[in-house]
């Protein structure tokens, strides 16, 4: 019962904002007669999502697969690279500035190049973009997590004469989980955005970004906006699934248990 109350307390304002927001949006569009190019009414978006669902959803899934592929590859590589790099302090100091600088590079500017490398219409070039976008946040976050262990915990392990591998497996890895999930959540959104923006520079005919661009070009704004909303929904769902996994695996962490003393 107390749990239910907490749930309501946490989510009711957001739900209320959603309901009022949609109502105001619908009202404003009709009342001010806003062109459906700029912003269609929520009702017409929902209608289009249903009426064009075949086309829309297959496009969204296509792009989602690009994003997912890139996510898996980029995050795994980023994690592994962090495990290797975190081991040696010198290597860490050498790599960190590059990892940070790479985060400052507009990766998306490389989309035309990956298109040239792997072909415009295949999934590969967008997957590569998504993977690169995911790699660096994962690298930085995982590295931070692996090195954030308290010195006392390490001293304790040394007093047990534990070897490096044991320390890694039993202490560093579990304590880095919050950071790893933080990186994963950032990566979900980056992967999705990367896939869609990558499409803009040229992509398969069935990809969501390409379709949205095409619809804008032929003034099919209902479809374009429906596509945009769908892209966002996929991004949110992707993020949400990772957050759910986090909640399930890290029930012990303060941020999940709300730092309550039971």
């Amino acid at each position, binding site marked *: 019962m107390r749990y239910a109350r907490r749930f309501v307390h946490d989510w009711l304002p957001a739900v209320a904002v959603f309901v009022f927001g949609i109502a105001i949006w619908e009202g404003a569009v009709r009342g001010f007669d806003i062109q459906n190019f*700029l912003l269609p009414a929520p009702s017409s978006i929902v209608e289009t999502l249903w009426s064009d669902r075949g086309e829309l959803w297959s496009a969204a899934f296509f792009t989602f697969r690009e994003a997912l592929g890139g996510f898996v590859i980029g995050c795994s590589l980023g994690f592994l690279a962090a495990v290797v790099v975190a081991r040696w302090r010198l290597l860490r*100091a050498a790599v960190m500035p590059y990892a940070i600088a790479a985060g400052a590079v507009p990766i998306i500017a490389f989309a035309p190049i990956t298109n040239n490398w792997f072909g415009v219409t295949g999934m590969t070039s967008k997957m590569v973009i998504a993977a690169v976008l995911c790699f660096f946040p994962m690298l930085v976050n995982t590295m931070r997590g692996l090195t954030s262990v308290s010195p006392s915990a390490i001293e304790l392990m040394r007093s047990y004469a534990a070897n490096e591998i044991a320390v890694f497996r039993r202490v560093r890895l579990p304590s880095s989980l919050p950071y790893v999930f933080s990186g994963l959540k950032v990566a979900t959104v980056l992967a999705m955005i990367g896939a869609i923006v990558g499409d803009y520079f040229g992509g398969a005919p069935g990809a969501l970004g390409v379709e949205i661009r095409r619809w804008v070009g032929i003034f099919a704004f209902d479809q374009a906006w429906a596509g945009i909303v769908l892209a966002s929904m996929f991004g949110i769902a992707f993020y949400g699934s990772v957050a759910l996994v986090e909640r399930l695996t890290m029930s012990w962490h303060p941020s999940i248990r709300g730092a309550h003393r039971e």
Partner: protein
Amino acid sequence: MAYAAPAPARPRLLRSERVRDGGLRVGLFLAGLAVLWGLWEGFRFVAESTGLRLGQFEANDRTMPHIHDIVAQLFEPSRRNGPLLIDVLWDAALFTAKEAAVGFLLGAFVGFGLGVLLAHSGLLQRGFLPYIVASQTIPILAVAPMVVVWVNPRLPDGLKDWGAVAVIAAYLTFFPVTINTMRGLQSVDPRALDLMRSYASSSWSVLWKLRVPAALPFIFAALKIAAPASVVGAIIGELPASIQDGLGGAILNFNQYYITSPTRLWATNLIAALLGITFFLVVLLAERVIVRRAPEHVA
């Protein structure tokens, strides 16, 4: 999401140790550049000799131009009888930088304001935070044409076109600033708050004298993410706005000539990368001066 921890305070080192540390850093940095160069040329060499193919990809002058060719291209004319590529790109970079900087400042102020608002009201936070997070899932590139059409007529003549791009850049900038401002403001030790209340301080003083200074490290951590993001936003924003003068336009332009002259696109990307890094370094420098805490290599 996109919340970056502030850099931990570093212990004070002796001057001799700092100099040696600095020298080591520079050395490692140059070594790193050399390693990257080596990896590039090495990979290309191996791939070419063994005829390695990854799907459609094979290494040659078109797909992996030599680094020295790319750099050399900068000093070639950008088109027949035209100005040098590097001059063209320099102007383009400045143009994009202008859009990005304005977008960055706009996004930073909006982000800061939102962060202050959300930090002060748990209700507002619970109500609006999910949508602020969700806003970043909207592919801004797809929405950009609409933004341009809506914003442009409302701008004074001098700001037309690139003003809309600045708005798009601001869109990518405000989010990390909002999240981190919120966390930073809420990170204050409750006892420090009690102390302020015991002085009968107004909410306003508490904000500016206690919370904001405490939040500065967090805010700068966010600004370091936001600065390059504003460059990305500017480049992306230029595309649907069909702006020729910036790096986005240059990328689209040279993309069309990629088959005949791949090095031009690569050179453009190099300049774009340098622009992003420059923005990052500017914020890093500002952090050093304002927060006076030597930033660790942590975003």
